[in-house]
């Protein structure tokens, strides 16, 4: 089946998308979903560096069996529009971990769109997204959490922080919680701010040049998204890809 039509602003999930970039990409590209099955009792960790000189939309459907665990970590960078969509369905006692960073300037739009369905009891999920933007760019996180009526003891958390390095950049956080069970923990938080000027001056007063001070502060800021990733080499890869995008950025 093909949708053959492009989304519009009226589609809630595409409200902040770069529609011009989607048009360049074509409607058919939006119809491609990657299915990832994580059988009961197994675990999978995936890391992605997303972004290039052309628009990219990556859509994934992740199904976790009982007691399974999936951890996805993404650096969302590049030179054009990027969107990473992950739909997750959790069986009993399963865990989904997500850490994502959107970073960029030059007017680009970057998006994470997640839908985490706690279909059965005792599943847990944790999502940490950090957005760093400048030069009129935008970082979006649309995060939906659905808890089914009998999915008691669900524990779901979502945390978004945006860091805007200069005026004109923006960040949009759209948490959406749909909870039909009564014995659950669902937490979400979203903040957007500027670089800590006091910390920047403190670093400069010790001899750190402004670009390095900015890099250290951004590195510390986005580090939260990859804390749950144990493999150091993978973590370095994601951080390097993100900090690489920062090179030459506004100071």
């Amino acid at each position: 089946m093909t949708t053959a039509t492009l989304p519009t602003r009226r589609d809630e999930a595409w409200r902040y998308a770069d529609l011009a970039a989607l048009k360049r990409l074509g409607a058919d590209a939006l119809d491609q979903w990657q299915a990832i099955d994580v059988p009961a009792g197994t675990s999978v960790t995936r890391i992605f560096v997303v972004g290039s000189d052309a628009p990219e939309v990556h859509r994934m459907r992740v199904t976790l069996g009982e007691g399974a665990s999936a951890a996805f970590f993404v650096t969302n960078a590049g030179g054009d529009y990027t969107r990473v969509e992950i739909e997750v369905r959790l069986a009993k006692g399963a865990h989904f971990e997500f850490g994502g960073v959107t970073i960029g300037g030059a007017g680009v739009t970057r998006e994470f769109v997640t839908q985490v369905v706690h279909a059965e009891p005792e599943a847990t999920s944790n999502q940490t997204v950090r957005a760093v933007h400048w030069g009129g760019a935008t970082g979006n996180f649309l995060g939906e959490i659905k808890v089914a009526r009998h999915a008691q003891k669900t524990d779901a958390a979502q945390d978004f922080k945006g860091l805007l390095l200069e005026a004109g950049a923006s960040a949009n956080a759209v948490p959406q919680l749909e909870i039909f069970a009564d014995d659950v923990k669902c937490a979400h938080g979203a903040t957007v701010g500027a670089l800590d000027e006091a910390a920047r001056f403190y670093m400069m007063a010790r001899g750190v040049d402004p670009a390095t001070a900015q890099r250290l502060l951004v590195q510390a800021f986005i580090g939260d998204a990859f804390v749950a990733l144990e493999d150091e080499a993978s973590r370095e890869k994601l951080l390097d890809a993100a900090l690489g995008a920062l090179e030459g950025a506004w100071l």
Partner: protein
Amino acid sequence: MLEITNLHASVGDKPILKGLTLSIPAGEIHAIMGPNGAGKSTLAHVLGGKPGYEVTAGSVTFRGQDLLALEPHERAAAGLFLGFQYPVEIPGVSNVQFLREALNAQRKSRGEEPLSGGEFLKLAKDKAGLLKMDMEMLKRQVNVGFSGGEKKRAEMVQMGILDPAFAVLDETDSGLDIDALRIVGAGINAIMRSPDKAVLLITHYQRLLDVVAPDKVSILAGGRIVETGGPELALRLEAEGYDAVMA
């Protein structure tokens, strides 16, 4: 080493420093005392180059250079150290990472080779020991979760590692208990008491001056230096108060 001439500075539209003149040669520890609101911290911030402080007149020459023309990191590389009254917490950045970046940035701008990780850790351990600070604390995030006294000791460890020619210490003694005050005072002496170094020591109390014996003491009031004397001036202030001494 530091020549401040007729310095005027404002914060926003408010003039704080109103013609401050002060000369500190190499080898001198110069204490600045003064009532609240006199402009002591403003002087420290202006010397450090903090954004938001505007110099409207006057000059500051540091080791023959126009200090005010330099960016804050260039001032540090030129040999200036600003000890903060309220050291800043930097979550997610360790002291070791921060200070190695800082030291190597300074060395680079002076045309010196960077220190390797091992060399840096050896230096850091040495200076932490001087301030009786556990090396484990230096592996933690910059000032995060440090008590007021620990932050001030960490400032002095930073000073030891960066080894500046000139230190501006803004109320480094505030928030310290008696033992920590002795340790910090001894640290200042060990790191900065040298014929080719100098210190501008901003303080409210004689107790720090008991440990770090100043060569000169000046009173800053109303944005200007109103009196300069020897160590006995601080003792008189302690005994009689600003109003009596300045009258």
